[in-house]
């Protein structure tokens, strides 16, 4: 079934994706999403009764690595890649804000 988004859904989707859309750009984003939804609704037209969902099949599954903790001697190297780091932790803003 073909579906569309309105301005409210467009903004809700952007919020879920942790993105901001400037008010003057919402209409353009909404139209663009609706164009693609309109085109992609084709996937609902094919009779797939009895067809299973697609899953990759493999000839031979890869060996699993041992599920065990291991040391990371490069810890400081990884920490150095973080844009903001303090002590032993990634530096983040307050998670709970007042008001």
């Amino acid at each position: 079934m073909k579906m569309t988004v309105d301005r409210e859904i467009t903004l809700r989707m952007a919020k879920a994706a942790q993105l901001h859309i400037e008010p003057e750009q919402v209409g353009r984003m909404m139209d663009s999403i609706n164009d693609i939804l309109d085109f992609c609704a084709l996937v609902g037209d094919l009779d797939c009764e009895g067809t299973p969902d697609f899953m990759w099949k493999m000839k031979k599954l890869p060996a699993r690595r041992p599920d065990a903790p291991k040391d990371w001697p490069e810890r400081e190297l990884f920490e150095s890649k973080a844009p903001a780091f303090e002590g032993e932790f990634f530096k983040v803003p307050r998670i709970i804000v007042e008001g």
Partner: protein
Amino acid sequence: MELYELSAKETAEGVKSKKFSAEDATRACLDRIDKFDAKVNALITLTAEDAIAKARAVDEKISKGEETGPLAGVPYLAKDNFCTSGVRTTCSSKILEAWVPTYNASAINYMNDSGAVLLGKTNLDEFAMGSSTENSIIGPTKNPRDMNRVPGGSSGGSAASVAAGYAPLALGTDTGGSVRQPAAFCGVQGMKPSYGQVSRYGIIAYASSLDQVSPLARTVEDIAVVMESLARPDSHDTTCDAYDRPKFTDAISLEDLKGKRIGVFEGFESSQMDAELYGSLRKAAELCEASGATVEPMDLPIAVKYGVATYYVTALADASSKLACYDGMRYGAHIDGKSLNEMYVNTRTASFGEEVRRRIILGTCLLTEGFYQNYYGPALKVRQKMVDEFDELFEKFDAYILPTSPSLPYLLGMKETDPNRLYLGDIFTVPISLGGLPGISLSMGLNGEGLPLSVQLVGQRYFDAELLGIAAVLERAIGRPAVANPGLPGTSNSGKGAA
């Protein structure tokens, strides 16, 4: 022949037999980059000093009589979405503009182990989302065969580099045609292996259920040599198959196509695609027949009608999940905010380009209640129907010939405003990706205006070696692509041409 014109195999043989050194071969390629890349703009990062050091190490091993690997001293380039330890990896995005990984992608390690010399990292559409290599933080790459045109994408920097003689080899990634289409636009050979053939570990993902590491070269033989280095089990990637691969270089010694059954795609009106590309399809069919193959028309009604829509639902949903990891906290760009959520939003909004933001929002939409049931769920079933269609045809044929692209390389800046029409440019490549099949874009020479012609060869999943064999037979009849001299007169293929 100049050193930069040699194939990878010829370069490795020359280095090993001390006809010239790995350093000579590396410097010849670096000179080409120095001469042309200010105009072509195919490279994001050049690693010249490291390359010279690596080449000298190869030369030293050879002088001591030590084992050097099948790609000893062969210069190559990698798309800038392969993690390279100590070398920045931008994915053409502001969000990773200054990021320097701490580890190599498995494919980079395998190339190192084979003796290859990394010259640098190539341009791409941001996060591999695009098909023209115009959507990048360093600006567009130009097509070395015609500097007014796009090189295709998203691996346009890698394809342009191989065409311009920066290196005999380059690595790209192919999600829905991102190596095959630029190979076709730049007049080189490009192969997307079967899904599961090559490890994706250390590749910055666009759509994990489709992405494959994919080589580009000027000869089919070089593709086979690289595949032998790249295709192996890897416990770091659970989608990388653990089966024993065949010897790809043995397969290309195939002398003719006697006994082969080749299907030639006829499910698209000739008026719906470029006439010369349609002619290339006919020419390839004739060459197959002349080489002893049985050639019959074939069609892919489900794949052609539903492939692009299925691909976009699948790829965008994948992308919205994968790109959630860019949070401005652990690595990459960071823009402060008053709260955690505000920091996420500020970082992602300012650091992802418009096309990437659009695809993430669309992918998020496709995975929410209602949209999932009407789009993502049905797409999973249609994808299985397409696989069934391919399997049924492979009972009749050993390989198919399809166009790679319905059009010749288009002019730079001709951004298609209707996204649906733009996506139809991928109509012949995305179904092959959805089915996990191996596909090779094979150069068919140049047209009268010097623009590359091509066809796409498609094989059964895991029959990559057999497909390379068929491609090698056709390449011998067509001629291998020559190096282009970007912006200079006389850029042409040595090939006999086609169509």
